[in-house]
């Protein structure tokens, strides 16, 4: 096991002067002086890069990979992140040269397949959302939120309602919601969660005014609960002239079951790397999609894909009301290809089964661990369950300690301390691709840990015990900031 627990040297520490790696090309034209071609004043004196052999590099990164937990390695119940299995066939498809080896500025007639994929995926996602149309331009979920708010801003500017400066956001929302709203110059007003875990309707009524631009809701909420009075909420907002935005981070619960567009939402975003199984790559690439009702369509970012005569796809930029361009090219195309393959492979029934099993798995965990870790709200949850580790506080044990101890049992911890409204929150999202056996082992580990908290709390407070590093000093990381090696220039 030493291979998995040893310390990995930095690349630069293994560098040997004069050693070289891959040779990618050979000069086959007459050589001229670099100084003449580039100007001596433009040349750099030295290039402080590591010098390694190809095998050095292979061993380095293989060794790093051994120190990285992933879905392929085990259960990853990270709430709000929908860590489902990422089908390998999608990677194979995305690597086809017809997708991976095309240039974004090639003539349109040479990329008809790529435009078809984007156009059809937009249509599939609009159908799943119950909206008029969609755009694949955003690079990630937070990007999609920002652009949606820009569209909302443009919508009101166009209507001459520039006094709408307030965005209402529940206290349980993802931090990206208020951060995105602030970026567009909106004022954020927080709405409280009621005692049943749903939005407090009277508070919402009081907050809605002619200054309200939008209400941003996550449905199912970050508490894993369906907002049961959502149709009424949307209607209330519409009555005051406000738009309603759906943060679609939790759409895995609703695929083929219910659609935000039918509930009254005007605009929503999807995370392709959550709901539609594209690998998240340790923090990206993500893939964001915005779906909108007709009222927001004129404001979509450019370019928009047009399929006019039913044969030829083209990119349209000249749109008078657009918010403008928002990505270097057309968003994360190779991520979109994977999402397309996922939906095409599953079809309508397959997507519905995803939602059913995601919700079944979450409720199964809720029931199995209820005695040790009661759910924050007792009702049927959707795709994830938020439980509280508050009961262990009397042993001096926190949610974080439970999470760290789970690592010793071979599991990735759930999301901790979110939503902020639940004390000692553990947010568990199993996803549909996990089996009953995996869930059983996980629940047994949690129950065992709650016993350990009583018998040997120190065991939890010092966990994890079998990892290459134990808990790290995050205070020192900020105070003695070390964010790069120092051997270089």
């Amino acid at each position, binding site marked *: 096991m030493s291979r998995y627990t040893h310390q990995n040297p930095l690349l630069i520490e293994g560098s040997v002067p004069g050693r070289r790696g891959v040779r990618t090309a050979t000069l086959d034209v007459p050589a001229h002086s670099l100084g003449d071609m580039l100007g001596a004043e433009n040349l750099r004196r030295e290039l402080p890069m590591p010098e390694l052999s190809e095998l050095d590099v292979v061993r380095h990164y293989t060794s790093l990979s051994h120190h990285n937990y992933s879905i392929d390695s085990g259960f990853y119940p990270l709430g709000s992140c929908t860590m489902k299995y990422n089908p390998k066939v999608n990677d194979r498809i995305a690597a086809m040269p017809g997708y991976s080896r095309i240039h974004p500025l090639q003539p349109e007639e040479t990329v008809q397949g790529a435009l078809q994929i984007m156009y059809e995926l937009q249509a599939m996602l609009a159908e799943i959302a119950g909206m008029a149309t969609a755009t694949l331009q955003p690079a990630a979920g937070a990007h999609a939120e920002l652009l949606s708010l820009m569209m909302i801003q443009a919508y009101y500017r166009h209507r001459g309602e520039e006094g709408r400066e307030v965005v209402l956001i529940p206290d349980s929302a993802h931090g990206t919601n208020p951060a995105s709203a602030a970026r567009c110059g909106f004022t954020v007003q927080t709405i409280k969660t009621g005692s049943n875990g749903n939005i407090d309707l009277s508070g919402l009524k009081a907050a809605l005014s002619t200054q309200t631009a939008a209400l941003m809701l996550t449905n199912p909420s970050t508490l894993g609960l369906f907002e049961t009075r959502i149709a009424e909420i949307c209607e209330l907002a519409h009555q005051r002239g406000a738009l309603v935005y759906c943060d679609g981070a939790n759409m895995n619960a609703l695929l083929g079951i219910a659609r935000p567009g039918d509930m009254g939402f005007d605009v929503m975003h999807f995370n392709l790397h959550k709901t539609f199984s594209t690998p998240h790559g340790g923090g990206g690439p993500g893939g964001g999609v915005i779906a909108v009702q007709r009222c927001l369509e004129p404001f979509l970012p450019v370019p928009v894909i047009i399929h006019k005569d039913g044969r030829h796809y083209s990119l349209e930029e000249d749109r008078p009301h657009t918010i403008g361009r928002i990505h270097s090219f057309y968003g994360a195309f190779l991520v979109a290809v994977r999402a397309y393959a996922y939906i095409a492979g599953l079809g309508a029934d397959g997507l519905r089964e995803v939602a059913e099993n995601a919700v079944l798995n979450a409720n199964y965990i809720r029931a199995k661990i209820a005695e040790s870790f009661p759910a924050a709200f007792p009702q049927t949850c959707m795709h994830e369950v938020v439980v509280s580790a508050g009961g262990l506080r009397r042993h001096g044990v926190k949610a974080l300690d439970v999470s760290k101890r789970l690592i010793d049992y071979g599991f990735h911890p759930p999301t901790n301390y979110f939503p902020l409204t639940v004390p000692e929150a553990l947010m568990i999202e199993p996803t549909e691709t996990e089996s009953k056996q995996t869930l059983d082992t996980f629940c047994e580990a949690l129950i065992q840990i709650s016993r350990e908290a009583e018998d040997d709390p120190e065991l939890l407070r010092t966990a994890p015990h079998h990892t290459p590093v134990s808990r790290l000093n*995050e*205070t020192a*990381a*900020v*105070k003695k900031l070390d964010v790069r090696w120092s051997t270089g220039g």
Partner: protein
Amino acid sequence: MLIPDDRKYSVTHEWAKVEGDKVRVGISDHAQEELGDVVYLDLPEVGRILSKGDVFGAVESVKAVSDLYAPVSGEVVETNTDILNHTERVNESAYDEGWIILIRMSDPSELDGLLDADAYRQIVEEASH
């Protein structure tokens, strides 16, 4: 938990200690404990005029940020720049070396609106139940 009775407190966990026509301000022991190791402070400029309740700065730990609110109105006459490089003093000596700003009061009657040690203790204890 330390709550000295030689000063007043606000519900947002600042303390205010009267020194003549001035008030020295910091955060309570309870506040520093809730935050964890302080790693950064955002201080106002000397000369800034504050109204009671204004945000005058922020204190950060690794995983939390707390705004600092002026307990009284007045002019900032001094800031504790020593703590910028020794943020641990806010944790280790919240009521003394870890003070944050000195305000020249414009309306000393505002002190009456602050909590005394007992009242503050009650708030802290209620919050932790």
